[in-house]
Structure formats: structure tokens, C-alpha cells
């Protein structure tokens, strides 16, 4: 056909099939560009929204590599005059991107320090041999650690401990499906629950702080904790109860498996002075986040930690380079720059005005509607996208929905952690899912229950606790 060989035609068809979502998003973008700009929406704002829609399709369906999506977001903003080259470059490299970069690098250092054995012993000492207590132990420790370290790091540290306990209980996994799900979901959901507790719990928190700073609102590390940490403490026992009720573990007592795990841990290599030093440096980083982040930024402190680890020889650059996903960092940078453009072009105000206009009197006459709206929008998007990307693109819109910007900003960041429904939404869930011990359908089964309970709890929390401390 037209001089093309059957092999080249077949190659083209394969490319087109694999890239169908890319082709769809480009056609969609071109169609939207040809629609006249709605009243009140500047042309740059309309273009920014179209780039957002196209980017969302590309991020969710992944027809092209994520770094390619990042590059698309950057160049399309420049070519379509949404912002200047300098403007895009400036918003691209923010403290939030420094933090995401630093936290991914810190994960590489921390995971290799052998903390897992100590944590395993710690959990078992506290919880004893009762399954429900052990699940509570996994959930609590995961939540407490992830509120400072970051969910992905904690999930990677906790997963082998949980899997060992499961394997020591029975080698036939079909006999202990309930127990496996209980332990593994305690880890995954513990990581998600904890990630909202401090600004360093996740990149999304830092992105939100970035947006709040752009609106001249500042919040310190400690203030963030005062506003969010009690919610973690409320959630832990309730989510533990929901997990146990949903999966009904086959064994109520895990006596022999605990003994085997203790022996296994005792045989593992003991912590060296160097490992202890790594812990101490990390402790200093946390102190830096608490006391110095308002002045220097969370990202700068995280990168300072990486710098110390590198010059101290605690980690090799080759190791950091190999295990850090630079594509994800570029993508976060570009989504933040797009979020900034959406705000600066007036698209965010236009979108939030449209939402408020659509809801009419409901928002003022029915209680909690604005809270529910923010929670549903953020939760829905973070379950198909990623929580950080969700905050990056939704943040500028939700911040315009109500006058209390700090409250709605925190609400957005907190509900972006409700990515309970799918295995792909949060790195902690994907890591647990990659064990092969839980199914994708399990995430929906438990996610719906935990999600429902968390939403109710969050509405109650922000409307009772926050007015008390405001």
C-alpha cells in the first residue's frame, strides 16, 4: 500500500494501537481549542485548562512515558503563550520539587539501613501474639513513621516484615487469605493515613504549602501537625476495626509465627555504628523540617540531608541515580508549573466560580456541601491519578472555592491521601500489591469501606476540631 511494506504497516498499526490514548488526547485537545472561549475565561486560561485535560488523560492512561508527558506540559504552555519561558522555568523548580527529589533520594538511603529488623522486634514487643493487636501495631507504626519519612519509604520497609509473618504462619497462601490481607492492608493504609500528619509526610503536602505561600498564607511544620495529627490518631483504631471486620483473619493468635520471626530477626545482621549515624542524621533532618522549614523550605532541608549522606559516603551517587525516578520529579515540576499557570491566568477562579454557580444556593443552605465537594473531587482524582499530581492540579481550584484558604488547602491535602480504592493510586498501595498476596479487587472491597468511614470522620473532624483551635 503506497509503497509501504506489510511490516511497516503492521508496525504503524501497532504504534497506533499502543498510543490510542495519546492520539485521542491530542484530537480532544485540538477540538477543545477550536471551541470559542467561554465568557469570563481569558484565552490563556482556556488553553491552560485544555493542556490540563490532555495531560490528565496522558497521566492516567500512560500511553507515552511520564517524562514525555512532563515535557508536553512544559512546551505546550510556552508554545501557546500561557506563560513565558522564564515564567514556566521559575514555577517548574519550586521547593516542592526540591522536596520530592530529596524525599525520593532519602528513601534510597533509609531503606538500606536495616531498620526493618528493629521495627519488627519493636512491633512484636508491643503487640504480643494477638492478630488484631499485631494488625493495629502494623497500622500504627506505619502511620507514625510515614508521617515523617514518607509513605513509599515506610511501605518498602514494612512489607518484608508483614510478608515474613504471613509466610511463617502458613506456606499455603490460599489458607490464610484473610490474614494476608489484614496485615498487608494495615501497612498500606497505615502509610496513607500517616502521610497527612506533617508537611514532610508526602510531596502533596509541600505542594499545597507552596500554593498557600503564593497566596501569602504561611503555615509552620508544627502548626500543620496541630491541625492534622489528631485525625491520624482518630483514624488508626477505626480503620483497624474496619480491616479486621472485612477480612476476618483465619488465626486469632500468631504464636509460632511470631517466634519464627523473632528468630529470623535475631539472626539478621545487627545495626552498625554507621547505621546509627544514618538514623541520627535523619533525626537532624526531621528537626530541621520542624524548626527551619519556614525559613529555608522543606525541600532545601531534605536536599541538605542528601548532601550529608553523600559526602559522608553513606550512599553512592550511582545508587541514588539508579533508584531515583527522575521522570516523576520532572512530571511533578511540570504539573506544579501548570497549576501555577491555571491560577495566574484566571482559569482557577473561573473554574471555581462555575462550580459555585452550578451549586447555587445549595452551598450556603446545606451544611458541609463545600467540604464534601472538595473531598469528593480530590479523593476521586487521587484514586485514578496520583495524590501529589492531584493536589498540583486541583489545589489552585479548591483554594478559590471558599474564603478560608488555609482550611480548604489542608482539606485538599488531607483528602488526597484517601487513595484507598485502587492498587495504582498511591505508591504504598502499589508496593503492597506488588507482593502478589492481595488482589486488585481487595482494594475496592476494603477501600470503599475505609474511604466512606474516612470521609465521614474528616467532615466531623474539620467542623468540630478546627473551629476549636482557630
Amino acid at each position, binding site marked *: 500500500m503506497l509503497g509501504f511494506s506489510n511490516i511497516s504497516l503492521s508496525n504503524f498499526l501497532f504504534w497506533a494501537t499502543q498510543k490510542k490514548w495519546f492520539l485521542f488526547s491530542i484530537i480532544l485537545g485540538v477540538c477543545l481549542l477550536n471551541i470559542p472561549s467561554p465568557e469570563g475565561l481569558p484565552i490563556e486560561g482556556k488553553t491552560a485548562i485544555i493542556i490540563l485535560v490532555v495531560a490528565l488523560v496522558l497521566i492516567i492512561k500512560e500511553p507515552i512515558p511520564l517524562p514525555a508527558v512532563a515535557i508536553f506540559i512544559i512546551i505546550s504552555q510556552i508554545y501557546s503563550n500561557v506563560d513565558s519561558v522564564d515564567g514556566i522555568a521559575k514555577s517548574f523548580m519550586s521547593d516542592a520539587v526540591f522536596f520530592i527529589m530529596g524525599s525520593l533520594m532519602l528513601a534510597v538511603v533509609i531503606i538500606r539501613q536495616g531498620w526493618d529488623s528493629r521495627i519488627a522486634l519493636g512491633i512484636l514487643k508491643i503487640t504480643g501474639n494477638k492478630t488484631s493487636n499485631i494488625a493495629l501495631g502494623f497500622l500504627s507504626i506505619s502511620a507514625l513513621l510515614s508521617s515523617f519519612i514518607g509513605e513509599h519509604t515506610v511501605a518498602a520497609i514494612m512489607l518484608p516484615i508483614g510478608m515474613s509473618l504471613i509466610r511463617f504462619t502458613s506456606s499455603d497462601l490460599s489458607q490464610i487469605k484473610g490474614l494476608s490481607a489484614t496485615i498487608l492492608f494495615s501497612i498500606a493504609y497505615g502509610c496513607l493515613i500517616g502521610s497527612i500528619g506533617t508537611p514532610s509526610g508526602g510531596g502533596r503536602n509541600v505542594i499545597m504549602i507552596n500554593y498557600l505561600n503564593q497566596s501569602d498564607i504561611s503555615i509552620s511544620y508544627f502548626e500543620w501537625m496541630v491541625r492534622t495529627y489528631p485525625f491520624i490518631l482518630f483514624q488508626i483504631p477505626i480503620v483497624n476495626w474496619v480491616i479486621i471486620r472485612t477480612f476476618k483473619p483465619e488465626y486469632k493468635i500468631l504464636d509460632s509465627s511470631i517466634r519464627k520471626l523473632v528468630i529470623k530477626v535475631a539472626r539478621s545482621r545487627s545495626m552498625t555504628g554507621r547505621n546509627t549515624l544514618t538514623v541520627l542524621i535523619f533525626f537532624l533532618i526531621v528537626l530541621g523540617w520542624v524548626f527551619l522549614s519556614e525559613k529555608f523550605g522543606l525541600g532545601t532541608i531534605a536536599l541538605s540531608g542528601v548532601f550529608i549522606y553523600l559526602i559522608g559516603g553513606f550512599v553512592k551517587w550511582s545508587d541514588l541515580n539508579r533508584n531515583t525516578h527522575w521522570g516523576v520529579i520532572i512530571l511533578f515540576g511540570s504539573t506544579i508549573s501548570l497549576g501555577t499557570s491555571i491560577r495566574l491566568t484566571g482559569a482557577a477562579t473561573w473554574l471555581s466560580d462555575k462550580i459555585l454557580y452550578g451549586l447555587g444556593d445549595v452551598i450556603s443552605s446545606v451544611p458541609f456541601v463545600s467540604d464534601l465537594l472538595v473531598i469528593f473531587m480530590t479523593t476521586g482524582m487521587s484514586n485514578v491519578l496520583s495524590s501529589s499530581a492531584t493536589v498540583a492540579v486541583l489545589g489552585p481550584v479548591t483554594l478559590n472555592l471558599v474564603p478560608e484558604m488555609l482550611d480548604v488547602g489542608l482539606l485538599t491535602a488531607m483528602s488526597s491521601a484517601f487513595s484507598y480504592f485502587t492498587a495504582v493510586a498511591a505508591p504504598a498501595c*502499589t508496593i503492597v500489591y506488588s507482593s502478589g498476596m492481595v488482589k486488585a479487587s481487595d482494594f475496592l472491597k476494603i477501600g470503599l469501606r475505609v474511604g466512606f468511614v474516612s470521609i465521614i470522620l474528616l467532615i466531623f473532624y474539620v467542623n468540630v476540631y478546627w473551629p476549636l483551635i482557630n
Partner: protein
Amino acid sequence: MKILIAIGSKDFSKPTLKLGMKVAQAFNAKTTIIDVGEKISEFSSQLVELAQDQLESWDFDAPGVDVLEWAFNYLSQNKLIDIKQTETGFPKNKLIDDGEGRKMVYLSGTTCEDVNLILRNGDIIAELREEVQFGEYDVTILGKSRKRNMSHDLLQYINSSILIVNDYEDQKFDKILLPLDYKDGMLKVAKYAIRVAMALNVGIDIFTVFDKNKSQNKGSNYFSKIIKFIRRSGVQYSHEEKEGEIVEQIIKKADKNKIIVMKASDMSPIKRFFKGSIPLSVMNECDVPILIVK
């Protein structure tokens, strides 16, 4: 000759491995067994890898290694690999990661040439296509999928002959069904059919269906050459001609006891993409193993 056998799980892949290895023996082929694991979201891929490294330090295998281990045990129980390699069990430490998300272990075969085990992650069609291009395989063998469009994509994009294994049991299949028409290019199909028939020790039913609406060049010299070729191979055969709708007649004739060996469509990829083809329709509708020769 190079054969690629794709397995997916210990529960459903036994018939695929069984028939696949028999065919590999028949061709004395260099054989690769591949497990394609689920695609990991690019957002978390690096973090998942980091977690997998951590799991390895606790003696846990990466997902998919258990499937390769099961395949290794099958090969060693059936003495299909060198006995020296089976003594120490599955050589996990010899799984070589080539850095492109592809892990492999080399084993020396006994009844066929070397047997390699490979682990990949991602979209099954894309990964198989890449592996076939990389290893220049002649036949790809895999179980029937319930996924819509899977057969279409396999025929359309995998650049090798395709054997789809449907519920294979030794005793159940006593014949090879070889649908032939009087067009050129059937000799390769006949060769494949003879090899498979010899491997399974069964005869061949040559079957020619005439479409009522189309004229056929009956009794070409080329066709008699093929018949002669089959006769000379020593495999028992019979030849039947029938008039009717081609797909329907082939499926009816295959019944539940014949393995179909037929030629891939000659249509251009674009036409095949939109219109489908006779081999694709047979593949979709039949309940028996089917080898489409490209």
C-alpha cells in the same frame, strides 16, 4: 528453529507448557519460556523495584519468579533439562537482570536445544512482540485468553507463527486438522503439521472447503505436491473436500479432538485490522488448540 512459550500462572499454564514442550521437541528447537507479569504504573515503578530489593534481602522472590520456578520443576520432572542443573534446584541466583525489566536464566536442554526462562513486566502483547523481535522466534505458544481482542492482537502484531493452546490433554487429541486451499504458500503449513503430527504420533486430516460464492482453482499441481510431501513423511493422512461457509466447516470438522494447523491470512495488515480474517475467526470460535503458521 526457535520457540517462545508464554506462561502466566501455575494454575492454568500446565497444558500450554506440556504441548509447547512437545512441539519444541518435535522441532528440536531452542526454547524460551516467558512469564509476562502485570504492568506497574510508571509513577511507582522505581519505588516498587526498591521494595523488591528489600524483599530479596528477606529471601522473598520478585513476583513471577515462582512461576518460573514451577516451570523449572516441570522441566526437571520430565527430564527436559540437563540433570546436573536440576540437582541444586531452581537457580534463582543465576537470574540475570538485563536492566530493561527483563530477567533470564539459561538452562541446557536434553530433548530439545537450550531452554531459557525469562521474566518480563508490562503489556503482554507489547512484551511478547518485543521478545519475538529480539529473539527472532519462529513460533509463539500461549494459552487462550478471555480478554477481548487478544487473538486479534496476537495475529496482527506478533511476527511469528502462533499456537494457541486450548484445554490440551494427551489422550483427547487424535488428529491434526490441516485446512488447505488450492492457493500457493501452503508447503510451510504442511511441514509444521507433519512435525506436530509426528511429535504427538497422530495422523493428519487434510480438509478443503469450497466457498459456494467464490471460484476455486481445483486440482492445482502445487496442491498435489503437498499431498505427496505428506505421504512421503510417513504420517497417516486423509483428504476431504466440502462446500460451505469456511469457518463454520473447519470448526465443525475440528470437533473436540483435533488440533488445527492453518495458514495465516495473506491480506494486508490494514485490511486484516478492520475486516478480520478466516484464521482469526477460527481462532476465536474453536475450542481446540490451533497453530496459525505465518
